[in-house]
């Protein structure tokens, strides 16, 4: 089977049933939302919000790859990549990934691409077989459930040379003081950088601004199988990072079923990161240029805490996960 037999095209609303069936086939017992026909149909109707690319043989869908634009920080996220088991190894995923990357870089609202590959095969595709290749920056601590088991996903980012932006790295940040981050993450990326002061925000993410919402804004669905909670901002009045971290930990007591908690913390907020570390969080990924404020980008780190006892599956990426765990363990010591 070769990719010549596949047609690549944008997804159409009437593809929803086949796409949902494909995800049901591959991700049978998982938290993947695309198993739901209603969810897929809804995203296909949301033009200019979700971008789907389809591989097909005649009327049969053989694989798909999507990009989810995040307007709040002008990032596009690789999502919904799946290949029918009969067509694995055919090169289809690589062609779909390249098409998705080209589409993202051609858009006016994409400064960076982020991906969360769940296996070494997918990592190889997006790092070695597409242009520009994505660079690993860590892992997600095991957010997702697939096949009834929690699993690690790697974190990878990509920047296009033609997309220039202002990025601030303060002298006191991890980026300049910690050899691991500099050598393993930032030097290979060769991003623009200037010195400057970071904004006071501790945590960044997408959330609806509303005067009553807080002090910790979040994404959480009580019945999502992943039992994951994302903290997206601190909107409260306190300034002491240790006090804020203590309030966060007490707030997490109210989310007793959240088995995985994550947040992107601005890279210069070392006292807050250390307070989170004392509360059981670990730094698992560096997120270069992730926070966007007033047209300027600032680096962040991904802090995660998992409370489920089971070690997540790694799908052949254990050496990479261990590498990042060892490297980031040096950052807050």
């Amino acid at each position: 089977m070769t990719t010549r037999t596949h047609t690549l095209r944008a997804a159409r609303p009437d593809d929803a049933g086949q796409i949902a069936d494909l995800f049901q086939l591959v991700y049978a017992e998982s938290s993947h939302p695309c198993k739901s026909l209603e969810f897929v149909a809804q995203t296909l109707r949301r033009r200019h919000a979700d971008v789907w690319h389809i591989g097909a043989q005649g009327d049969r869908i053989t694989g798909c790859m999507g990009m989810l634009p995040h307007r709040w920080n002008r990032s596009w996220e690789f999502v919904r990549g799946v290949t029918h088991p009969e067509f694995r190894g055919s090169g289809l995923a690589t062609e779909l990934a390249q098409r998705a990357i080209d589409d993202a870089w051609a858009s006016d609202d994409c400064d960076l691409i982020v991906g969360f590959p769940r296996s070494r095969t997918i990592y190889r595709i997006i790092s070695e077989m597409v242009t520009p290749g994505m660079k690993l920056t860590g892992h997600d601590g095991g957010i997702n459930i697939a096949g009834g088991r929690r699993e690690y996903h790697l974190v990878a980012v990509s920047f296009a040379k033609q997309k220039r932006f202002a990025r601030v790295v303060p002298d006191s940040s991890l980026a300049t003081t910690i050899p691991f981050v500099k050598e393993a993450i930032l030097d290979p990326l060769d991003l623009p950088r200037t010195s400057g002061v970071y904004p006071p925000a501790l945590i960044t993410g997408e959330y609806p601004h509303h005067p009553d919402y807080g002090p910790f804004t979040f994404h959480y669905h009580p019945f999502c199988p992943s039992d994951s909670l994302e903290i997206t901002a601190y909107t409260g009045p306190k300034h002491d990072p240790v006090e804020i971290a203590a309030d966060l930990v007490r707030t997490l007591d109210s989310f007793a079923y959240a088995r995985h908690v994550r947040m992107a913390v601005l890279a210069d907020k070392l006292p807050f990161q250390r307070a989170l570390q004392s509360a059981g969080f670990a730094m698992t990924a560096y997120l270069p240029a992730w926070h966007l404020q007033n047209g300027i980008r600032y680096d962040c780190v991904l802090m995660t805490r998992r409370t489920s006892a089971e070690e997540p599956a790694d799908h052949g990426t254990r050496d990479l996960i261990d590498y990042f765990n060892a490297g980031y363990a040096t950052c807050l010591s």
Partner: protein
Amino acid sequence: MTEPGRVDAIVILDVAGRLTLEEGAATLREQVRQQLAAGERKILVDLSSCDYIDSAGLGELATTLIRLQNAGGRFALLGAKKRVRDLLRISQLLGVFEIFDDEAQAQAVMK
């Protein structure tokens, strides 16, 4: 919060004032724990006198919902004011709760 009421096997927990990290969230958690330990499986939280819910309060409601569902029970909210509904909506939790405007309707549905 006031003492729980009980009508036709439905326990009604009143939340007055604020349901926050500092006020009410831990109390609600303990009351729900006691009711479950006592074998109760239908809980209605009356929010008609509740003015504000913070992130801890929202988490507590979501956790109570899961706890009741896991126990084969039923959980609903009663009399949520617009300000509270707005908070449930912007936190994307509005759709996961059964919310009733009057107690008789809640009792009829939850019976």
